[in-house]
């Protein structure tokens, strides 16, 4: 009797269906989130660790041209470190003679390269700057950029 029952149980065994409803729900949520954060021109911009960009109402997309990154501890052009920043003071930078600074020389070499290629479209500088820095630090970079032939620049901000 017991054997017969066991045989009957084996015959009626149905392969269990995988319950994917909850997985579908999860995927739907992820899909909606990703659709909302979809960007038609995703830019890969490297932001310094610990850098806090200010928020702004600006709606203008940022163009990835020459990136100058000014954080509370370093000044970089592209990925190259130009100077060390310590308590808002850029090392090796004379406020009255910005043309002697490494930043000026570096930007001038970029300017010459752009001029030789007659490339005026990519001649704007985008400045990534920490929101906690005082104007005296930013002004040194801005002034030097202007002197090196980049009077127009963009400040990178986070969308409000």
């Amino acid at each position, binding site marked *: 009797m017991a054997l017969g029952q066991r045989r009957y149980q084996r015959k009626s065994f149905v392969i269990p269906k995988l319950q994917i409803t909850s997985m579908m729900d999860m995927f739907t949520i992820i899909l909606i989130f990703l659709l909302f954060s979809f960007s038609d021109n995703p830019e890969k911009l490297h932001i310094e660790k610990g850098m806090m960009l200010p928020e702004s109402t600006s709606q203008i997309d940022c163009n990835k041209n020459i990136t100058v990154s000014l954080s509370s501890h370093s000044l970089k052009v592209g990925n190259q470190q130009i100077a060390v920043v310590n308590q808002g003071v850029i090392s090796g930078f004379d406020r009255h003679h910005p043309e002697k600074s490494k930043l000026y020389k570096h930007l001038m070499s970029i300017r010459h390269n752009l001029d030789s290629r007659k490339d005026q479209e990519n001649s704007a500088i985008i400045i990534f700057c920490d929101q906690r820095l005082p104007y005296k630090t930013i002004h040194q970079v801005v002034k030097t950029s202007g002197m090196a032939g980049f009077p127009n620049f963009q400040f990178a*901000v986070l969308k409000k």
Partner: protein
Amino acid sequence: MKRFTRNKKVNETDTDIDMVPIMNMFLVLIPFLLSSASFFDINAIHTSVPVRQTQANSDDGLSNKIKKIIPVIEMKANKIELYALSDQVDAKNLMKWDVSLNKNGNIFPLADIQIYLQDMKKQYPESDTILIIPDDNILYETIIQTMDISRNSNQHQLFPNVVLSDKI
């Protein structure tokens, strides 16, 4: 009754929707959207530093009958000084725009500045440039906030060309 329930079980068809193709589609869509998703929406503010103006450029402005004025926001440690510059408006009219606003504690009176700029824009609608002169210790965040209120107010454009300058 028993027979009825047995018949019902036999006739019962599987009504589950086959979600496997949808899942497959999701699996294709999600990596694609992940690769083009932007988690930080970085925008930009166009700014410039003052450049030496040629005589030809300034003459262009004078030949134009529409008067232009440049508001100046001088951000100091404990107050904001507002005034206007123009080579097309006489000194007496420019003097009307001299205003000094004190800080409310640690906060700059940005709303008052915006009202001031709105009034100026009403009187000189062709003006589009503003000069911001921050003090050495003004934080970058405050400068950006000032730029924001100078460029737009309630979807109306005020002075879109922001020029950052040192004390002249």
